[in-house]
């Protein structure tokens, strides 16, 4: 469209002094949504990092006689336990604080595994096309058609539950988004002239993929990674909620919601508080992802 041509001409004229990275940074810092999201994630990451300093109690220490205490604003609370205690008399605040570690570890770990699988398959399918593409597409359809919950439960049992197993399982279940995006992006980039130029200069497929294609997928992969971070965190919490994820007594927010569920009519905070934590973490990731996408996509073919 003519008007967009004009506006890019203008932007180009203004931006000619900045490298893509500088433009990227400049836009990031002026994107409110991204800043909010990044702030949330950074705060939660810091909480996770300094959990031992921040938590008032050992999250595993139980006092059976002081169980199910309400939070500080409710009557009958104990000032030692700001957010009350759970069914085993453990400090709820401390468990929430340590819960950040579980969520973040699993989110990052699973999103990385998904990325490894999805990007590899996506680039292969997009670059080679033909039978490779067909085979990978079949794999994709089969994966999409397979109910993930069942897979998760079966795998948890076979391998035995631990945080690493949950990371692996959630990762293995969440590669399709990477695949779909990198596949089509690779197809598009592969048809661009700079790939033809590299091939004409004698580059092997491996060299083309590493040097020409992957760097151009980077921003899209980062965007998906951020979203998958949120999705993986939610997946872990759902699994833990159903009892096939993180094992007690490890503090996982999903597990805490499941534990609080029985008494939720009388002690709604047991369900509400971990839910809010999950919500903040995931919305942080999503805002970051939205921001990154806004910032990277309008560049179109120039970015």
């Amino acid at each position: 469209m003519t008007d967009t041509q004009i506006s890019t001409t203008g932007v180009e004229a203004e931006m000619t002094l900045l490298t893509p990275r500088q433009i990227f940074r400049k836009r990031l810092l002026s994107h409110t949504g991204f800043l909010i999201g990044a702030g949330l994630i950074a705060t939660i990451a810091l909480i996770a990092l300094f959990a031992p300093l921040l938590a008032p109690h050992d999250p595993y220490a139980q006092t059976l006689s002081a169980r199910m205490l309400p939070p500080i604003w409710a009557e009958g609370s104990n000032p030692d336990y700001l957010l009350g205690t759970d069914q085993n008399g453990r400090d709820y605040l401390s468990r929430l604080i340590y819960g950040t570690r579980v969520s973040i570890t699993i989110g990052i770990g699973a999103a990385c595994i998904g990325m490894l699988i999805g990007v590899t398959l996506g680039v292969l399918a997009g670059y080679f096309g033909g039978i490779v593409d067909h085979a990978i597409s079949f794999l994709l359809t089969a994966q999409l058609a397979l109910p993930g919950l069942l897979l998760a439960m079966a795998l948890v049992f076979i391998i035995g539950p631990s945080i690493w197993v949950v990371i692996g399982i959630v990762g293995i279940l969440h590669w399709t988004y990477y695949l779909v995006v990198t596949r089509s992006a690779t197809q598009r980039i592969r048809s661009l002239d700079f790939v033809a130029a590299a091939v004409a200069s004698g580059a092997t497929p491996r060299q083309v993929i590493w040097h020409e294609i992957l760097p151009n997928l980077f921003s899209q992969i980062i965007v998906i990674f951020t979203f998958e971070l949120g999705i993986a965190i939610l997946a872990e919490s759902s699994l833990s909620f159903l009892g096939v994820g993180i094992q007690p007594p490890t503090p996982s927010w999903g597990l805490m919601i499941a534990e609080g569920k029985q008494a939720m009519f009388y002690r709604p905070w047991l369900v509400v508080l971990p839910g809010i934590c999950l919500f903040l973490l995931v919305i942080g990731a999503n805002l970051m992802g939205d921001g990154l996408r806004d910032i990277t996509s309008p560049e179109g073919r120039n970015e």
Partner: protein
Amino acid sequence: MSKLLEINNLSVTLPLPGNTLHVVRDVSISLERGQTLGIVGESGSGKSMSALALMRLLPRSAIADATTMQLDGLDLRTLDDRNFTRQIAGPQIGMIFQEPMTSLNPVYTIGRQMTEGAVSRGLLSGKQVERKAIDLLERVGIPDPAGRMSQFPHQLSGGQRQRVMIAMTLMLDPTLLIADEPTTALDVTVQAQILDLLDDLRRERQMGMILISHDLAVVAERSDDVAVMYGGEIIERGDASGVLRAPAHPYTQSLMLAIPHLGMAPGRLGAIPGTVPSLVSPPKGCIFAPRCSYRREDCTTARPQMRDHDGQHSYRCVLETPPTRHAEVIPLRAAGTPVGQDVITATNINQVFETRKALFGAKRQIQALDDVSLSLKRGETLALIGESGSGKSTLARILLGLAQPTSGQVRMLDRPVAELAPQERAAFVQPIFQDPYSSLNPRRRLAEIIARPLQLRGEKDSKVLKQAVGEALDIVRLPQRLLHAYPSQLSGGQRQRVAIARALVTRPAALICDEPTSALDVSVQAQILNLLDDLKAEMGLTCLLITHDMAVVHQIADRVVVMLNGKVVEEGPAQQVLKTPTNDYTRNLLAAAPRFEMTNAEVAS
């Protein structure tokens, strides 16, 4: 009787986050009934924006302002959007756009799109509307118009779609027709037909017409008056023959010299240095001053006034009389380079693609190349000319070894190309592509991009690489400071130079250039064509040039191969083919190419 259209002091600004683009500044135009006003300018000059402002089709955030905006005596500024769209857009002013492929809604039939404007206004009954639509389709030259009514846009060719667009616009009998680059996306032969059709219709209906184009030749042939735009301003205005035969503004003059002319002997082109001005902060003084060879001190202090030239003709410049240019033609540097033996030969190449036209369509075969044979001799520039779909790009990919033909053989350096190692092939021939925006990896710095072919050959010594890259930049006349820049920081012309530098860094013997200038503005095209001439002269490069532009062929080719529907239809020395074509198709191509009816002397006068 008032003029059909009168616009004074039109300005359009486009607020962006952080700053504002001044896309149109202080533009005044007027038009009589039955006349054509041509607006010419390179991309970003504001010519389309002016028309969109008139039609109220600007982007939502844009702000348009004018002191006068009258159509047939009616002050358009007093109409609210609702009345404007009811009374003016459509019934009074019709508009045709550049992209016929996307300007029609793909999910509705031609008939529906033709008739809905009239039907929704309740102007005619259903029967009458249909009758009128069929008549108009017939008038614009669509075969079987009644049958076409129930077809969808994708079933028509590009030229036909543009005809449908024209017919559709005429359904409401507008008094003013705006054609915004109506033929840019079309092949040359179709281009001429559409322009003729528009001209005929204008005369028949006594419509006013605004013809917007980047192509001076198109405007020169079809307009009564011409306005030349640059950087959002009209810098020259007047009757067509006056402006184009005797341009007064230094910019218009330079532009004329930058265009290869079919009618003249090929010579060095007059490239304009520098790039288009920033629309964010336009200079206080003359908008062209930074690139002008007649720049004086007062050029930069205040904006010059429109200056009357000879009553019919005015220009915006500090010079009281237009500068005069020298008439002499500087000969091409590479003229007369000796030609050696065949270095690449293609014999009996066939390429068949199997495609499914639609999701549910049957497989069908497309014969992209049909028994093509050609050879490229050392030191020559061979032009491969043809319209879209003629198979010329497919052939280029096969010659480069990027694709395998269905049958036939390509020999390079007297060996079958399949036997050559990729590195050997790369050392001999390198490609230049059409789109400088997609031919450079946006994630790499220029130094990396240019050094890449050397690295792929196994060169690891960073000193050697650095030196080779530096030399390559020199060859393409790019400053060394750009080494660490990214492609996005460059203009289109600069990018194309980088692509050439990358192709040359391994010192190949031959280049295969696929439409190397068709995505560029004429002033930039001149720079690149001159550069190719230099390279030929300095390095004795062999060059296969793929193009659709006869003027470019004329400018730099030694020999021409004309392709049509995957077949070679004519082959011969360039000047001979251009002067005395033997094939009907070549003749058509030549006849359709827009040209200036003038001589070098006239440019200078």
